[in-house]
């Protein structure tokens, strides 16, 4: 199922040649194809290596990394919903030192060609900058994604991402510390997502990624209790795809930086739709839970789509959606 490292996608398809150019650019970073993994759904790749040849991904985005270990939220953390799921993980992670020593080291040893985007989390600006400062010393990082949009922590996360000024402040603080591409991950839980997108663009972000999960809530009718200790949780999966597509469409028109689309994308066709809406690259998230090889399945489907549709470069799809009539 997983290909050995010396094989390429071409070998697998048996064509020997790539008919469509699948490369896309996020700032100064060139990716072999537009398929990424969404933070928090793919750990740091290793867990999926039985199912996915990691070197076939455009890039992987790691689970959120904080300056010190975070324990995450108590109580129940998951609830399936119609065509989706709610999570209240709370960014549990072992911290940046562990990340560099174990996860990044594993990726460098086992998938050295794979661009690694590190998702960075914090409660306050100095925590985000502490992570960036530390990771600047490490090799093998292609870009950072600032998570200012997690709905499952009390301070930081979404509290920053709903306020254009706060989002710009953390962006410029991190911008000052690195030349690596800086992506800011936006929350959909705002009235106008383009305001926040423009604010972080102005503060020096190289790209924006959207959407993080949508705030939801779950109740057990029998016990009459809330399912989650924090009451609210983050909704993801195919259920949120139309919302994500709409926001990608809006942000792509409101900014001049690349948009990384995500939110319910599960198949190659979904990837095409996000790109037509304006995304330069597309991350699969919750889909990895349903099908651990969703990413490479989607890549195969995207390649077939491009060949069948006569798309010579996948970048032709970006923002190319046409009006209904």
């Amino acid at each position, binding site marked *: 199922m997983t290909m050995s490292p010396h094989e390429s996608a071409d070998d697998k398809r048996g064509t020997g040649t790539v008919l469509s150019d699948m490369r896309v650019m996020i700032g100064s970073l060139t990716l072999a194809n537009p398929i990424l993994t969404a933070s928090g759904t*793919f750990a740091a790749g290793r867990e999926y290596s039985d199912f996915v040849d990691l070197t076939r991904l455009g890039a992987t985005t790691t689970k959120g990394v904080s300056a010190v270990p975070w*324990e995450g939220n108590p109580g129940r953390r998951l609830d*399936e919903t119609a*065509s989706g799921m709610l*999570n209240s993980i709370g960014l549990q992670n072992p911290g940046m030192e562990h990340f560099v020593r174990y996860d990044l080291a594993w990726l460098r040893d086992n998938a050295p060609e794979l661009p690694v985007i590190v998702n960075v989390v914090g409660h306050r600006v100095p925590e985000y900058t502490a992570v960036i400062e530390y990771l600047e010393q490490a090799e093998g990082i292609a870009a950072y994604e600032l998570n200012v949009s997690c709905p499952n922590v009390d301070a930081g996360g979404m509290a920053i991402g709903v306020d254009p000024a706060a989002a710009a402040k953390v962006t410029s603080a991190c911008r000052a510390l690195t030349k690596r591409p800086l992506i800011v991950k936006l929350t959909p839980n705002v009235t106008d997502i383009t305001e926040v997108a423009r604010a972080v663009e102005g503060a020096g972000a190289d790209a924006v990624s959207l959407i993080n999960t949508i705030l939801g809530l779950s109740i057990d009718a029998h016990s009459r209790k809330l399912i989650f200790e924090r009451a609210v949780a983050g909704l993801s999966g*195919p259920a949120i795809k139309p919302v994500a597509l709409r926001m990608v469409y809006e942000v792509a028109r409101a900014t001049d930086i690349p948009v990384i689309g995500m939110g319910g994308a599960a198949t190659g066709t979904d990837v095409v739709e996000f790109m037509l809406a304006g995304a330069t690259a597309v991350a699969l998230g*919750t889909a990895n839970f349903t099908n651990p090889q969703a990413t490479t399945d989607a890549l195969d489907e995207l390649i077939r789509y491009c060949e069948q549709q006569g798309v010579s470069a996948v970048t032709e799809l970006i923002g190319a959606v046409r009006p209904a009539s």
Partner: protein
Amino acid sequence: MAKFLEDARILSNMNFAPDLWSLRLQAPRMAAAIKPGQFVKIDLGESGHILRRPLSVYQADLKAGEIELLYQVVGSGTRLMSAWRPGETRSLLGPLGMPWPVPEGTRRALLIGGGIGTAPLALLDQQLKADPAITVTMVQAAQTAERLVARGFFERTVDTWLCATDDGSAGACGLITVPLEELLATQHFDVAYVCGPEVMQAPVARLCAQHGLRCYVSLERRMACGIGACAGCVVKTTSGLKGVCMLGPIFDAEEVCWDDNVASRVR
């Protein structure tokens, strides 16, 4: 220990007691790979339900290339499963989790099962009985006699079989801890294996601890990935949070923070 996906053909899907079902699948790779205590996740094959359901394996027949899963209809996902027909195909993910450990020198093993949770003790029973030096005693509990899952199999294969039912329709009437307490007071065991609802596992684990008996429990949590990536299925242990899917589902009962965990279960 590589994990894999396998398309499994449904051989039969039978209702054997109210809400309790047996699902037999043609899955030769999984049948050969699964170890006692490990589990699989099965795709519901319907786009409205995006999360695979984690299920323990009751029987694995290497020669026939079949596995059998027992499940209880508790929600919309398992209700959907109960409508599955022979000949249909579903995607299996596995083998997941760590197997039951068998300590060196084990001679007298005690199996303790409650409700549908009794199922994953069957493969362990077979493994233990393959060693002629090991004797197996089992205490099984359920609400009623007809809900004593796989009773025939266990009565046939273990050396001593006891049961308790809530309504007294078989064995002792009431909680499993009653016959268990008597047993532990009079007999010595090297290790106990427990699977069932956590409200049952917690007092059983306490009882084992009081008798200085090493005790392993099999826990369950709602799961998203099943492969250690999402941190959705954690339980509180004395050495921090641990994911049930990778570091479990089997835990040493001594390391489980029972009060925190049982309190956090919604149903």
